């Protein structure tokens, strides 16, 4: 039986009369890699924040691991890891200090040294985070989101700014974590990545979900050759109607 890890229903969020997210339904099943894709400003980050409860939704309901993330904040966040778009850190903090700091926030955590070596960052542990390259920083932000062995991880535009080989490395790593049972909710602008990683996707535009399904289903439905073409067609079509 399929177990629903995230159930979001009818989420609405309006900023100054602009509907950032409009009647959003998202379901993510256990063990799945789910991708939320859409143009800049489509409402992806707002959707994630409404699901997590860091932004107050106007209406709708959210259920994560059968709990309400606002009322059961502590228990929910023991089980989920979050990597926000553009991670920032305190000034002059070292890699290992940030790892210690984040690990201390959870009741259980895995050895951060092990995680650093898995990502090839062992020799960077005494460096300032500000001295890391873009790719190393992104890797670190994933490590920090996974230090407490979460059941679900949210990754917002994880591979933006990575070079092709670093991106590939990240894909392999996420796939292997997923094989071990991690459920992943991601957003991305790279359709090759989405196609390679995601079991299911939803395309969002102007706050509304326009289609949901496996990447192959989405491609077939609009009769295109690749996910990128299908995506462009879907977004453009919607533009024409309005």
């Amino acid at each position, binding site marked *: 039986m399929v177990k629903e890890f995230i159930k979001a229903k009818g989420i609405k969020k309006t900023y100054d009369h602009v509907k950032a997210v409009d009647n959003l339904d998202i379901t993510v099943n256990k063990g799945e890699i789910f991708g939320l894709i859409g143009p800049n400003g489509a409402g992806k980050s707002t959707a994630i924040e409404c699901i997590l409860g860091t932004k107050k939704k106007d209406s709708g309901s959210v259920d994560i691991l059968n709990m309400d993330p606002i009322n059961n904040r502590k228990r929910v966040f023991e089980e989920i890891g*979050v990597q926000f778009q553009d991670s*920032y850190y305190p*000034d002059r903090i070292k890699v290992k200090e940030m790892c210690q*700091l984040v690990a201390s*926030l959870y009741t259980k955590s895995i050895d951060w040294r092990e995680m650093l070596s898995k990502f090839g960052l062992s020799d960077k542990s005494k460096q300032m985070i500000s001295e890391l390259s873009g790719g190393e920083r992104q890797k670190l932000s994933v490590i920090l989101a996974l230090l407490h062995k979460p059941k679900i991880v949210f990754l917002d535009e994880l591979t933006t700014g990575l070079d092709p080989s670093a991106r590939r490395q990240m894909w392999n790593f996420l796939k292997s974590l997923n094989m071990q049972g991690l459920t992943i909710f991601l957003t991305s602008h790279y359709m090759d990545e989405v196609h390679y990683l995601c079991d299911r996707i939803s395309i969002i535009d102007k706050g509304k979900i326009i289609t949901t399904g496996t990447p192959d289903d989405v491609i077939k439905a609009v009769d295109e050759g690749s996910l990128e073409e299908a995506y462009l067609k879907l977004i453009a079509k919607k533009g024409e109607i309005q």
Partner: protein
Amino acid sequence: MKSLWIMLKIEFKLAIREFSGILFGIILPAGIITLLGILFGDKLASGNDGYTMLQQSFAAVITIGICATGLMGIPITISSYREKKVLKRFKVTPTSPVLLLIAQFLSNFILAVISSVLVFVIAYLFFDYKMIGSLWIFIIIYLLVVLSIYSIGMLIASISNSVKTSNLLCSLVYFPMFFLSGATIPYEIMPKGLQKFADIMPLTQSIKILKGVSLGSEINGYLLQIIILLVTTIVCIILSIKFFRYEY
């Protein structure tokens, strides 16, 4: 508790690396008390009350560390944590970001105490400083001063909407207090008009009580000052809670 301890250690390391807190909070007051000691030694203060210039200035120098940490360190760090979304990151963990704020206060408080102890030790060892009044009452008033100055710092952190504003507000509050309250230039030698202006500042009131208590005056004589500090603390705490946000 474990996470508070780790946060405190890291916050402290970051403060040392940042260094301006150490420079303005510890090295500066240590330098000023040394300078005062060398310049005035055990010269008697004017007014013939039987105490030395050093005894008269001691309380004011003690407050420099409190101001550097409370009016610079706390507001600037907290608003940069907000701007850099560090607080937001904490919101998606089981631990409340309030813990980080507490660690921030404690680490600054420790710096302030180190500064004050150092000033005391320098004055005592090299310049024969002796506190005339009770050290215990002095410490209690010291804590009250820390509370009120830190609450002003917290209010600045809460109302400013960027690190830039926070920096500006800090300078607007810090420098007049620093120069006019008697922390650097003795209050006694200021013209009357300036004294009146200086009197509105909580730091001036703080230094008045600390000075009085260290020179052996009765604490009862400072009820008005104590009330001013308490009211400042309460009002600033209420307002900073009201205006506090985790992100811009």
